[in-house]
């Protein structure tokens, strides 16, 4: 990559797949990432995995963050991963947040999710992890 790209802000898509309407967590994370200098594309509520994959590609994001509180994470997150692979976009790392039991978190990581943030994770930790996953640790 050319030198100029280093100074470009990290672009992150924050999306909430599925039907739960609790987007406070997603908004708090979006805001923390913004305050850390990132460009956050906030996709909002009730996105289908296909919509998320599409947005990730068209917005050319460095990462995708998925927030799920409905318990449907083992259903929805693998579908996003699969969709990205189908679009030759599996280079885009995916992280997840929400109420996700440890066992599921391990399984998701085996499937390729780069990080899973449970309730109570500090915003600093999330920001640092996102930077490091994007390959731009400070």
């Amino acid at each position: 990559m050319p030198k100029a790209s280093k100074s470009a802000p990290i672009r992150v898509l924050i999306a909430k797949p599925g039907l739960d309407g609790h987007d406070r967590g997603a908004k708090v994370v979006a805001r923390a990432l913004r305050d850390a200098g990132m460009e956050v594309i906030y996709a909002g509520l009730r996105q289908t995995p296909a919509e998320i994959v599409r947005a990730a590609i068209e917005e050319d994001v460095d990462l995708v963050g998925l927030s799920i509180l409905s318990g449907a994470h083992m259903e929805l997150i693998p579908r996003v991963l699969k969709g990205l692979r189908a679009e030759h976009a599996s280079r885009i790392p995916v992280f997840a947040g929400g109420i996700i039991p440890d066992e599921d978190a391990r399984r998701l990581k085996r499937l390729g999710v780069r990080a899973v943030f449970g309730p109570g994770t500090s915003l600093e930790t999330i920001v640092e992890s996102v930077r490091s996953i994007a390959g731009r640790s400070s």
Partner: protein
Amino acid sequence: MNGREPRAPLARAVRRGDRRALARLISLVERRDPAADRALRELYSFTGRARVVGLTGPLGVGKSSLVNRLIGHLRSQGRSVAVVAVDPSSPFSGGSVLGDRIRIEREDADTGVFIRSMASRGQSGGLAPTTRDVVRLLDAAGFDVVLVETVGSGQVDVEIREIASTSIVVLIPHLGDEVQTLKAGLFEIADVFCVNKSDLDGAEQARRDLVELVALGAPRHGWRPKVVSASASQPFGIDELWAAVESHEAFLDEGTRRADRDRHRLRAELFELVLDDAARRLRGAVEADRTFAELVEEVRARRLDPRTAAERWRRRSARPRG
């Protein structure tokens, strides 16, 4: 140069309709990467075909919702649509939250819609510094219509006029005093006014006020802005809104209007580029010049005033060296 297919791989991919390549190239343009520069040069001959329509107006008037409805309307006519939505960057962190991202119900395989958010990255005026180039990429990629949604900071979003062929200014009922201030700012850039949320009370009054304001003003270059009532949420008025855009486009197509406008803009763009280049060269010359440094000292000692010093330097540097 018309029609020659580009050689840069990304530019070729964009011409082939590769959406990932298009998305990638937009990012490169945003960060002013040299690879983007080459692609832009090669793709320029394919631009000038898309209808570029701007939507601007104060925060919260529902520009994104209208964009959604316009996408639906245009898709139903079989036209492809690209959207560029500009949101502000924080002057403090440089970060930005873009969205709620425009959402439309579209078939997963529909390649006729492409939506991209841009952070303004420090530029005021409602657009990002590279919006014009991004619009050109989308134009060259073959989209029939490019919708540009501006930051929405209100009165200062006037730059859209330099990019769009038709500018829609979106308002809502009960803006009252806001409409007064519009006389000076947004009022001058509107080709079409859209009173969104016209399902609310006061919509008819707002429409009448606007019609009156429009009637008071002299037509600009022969065009009197249209006023359309619409509601993105109901929805209604979307067909009428697009019909108003079309009528302005048809107006531009009469005689030499479109060509004149194009010439005027390109002249300004070219002049800016020439000026940038001249400024860069001059800066280099000044920095390397000992006399310039001496003149600065003269000014500092109050023996010369800045204007006389500048004039002296100009005369001296214009003189052929022996």
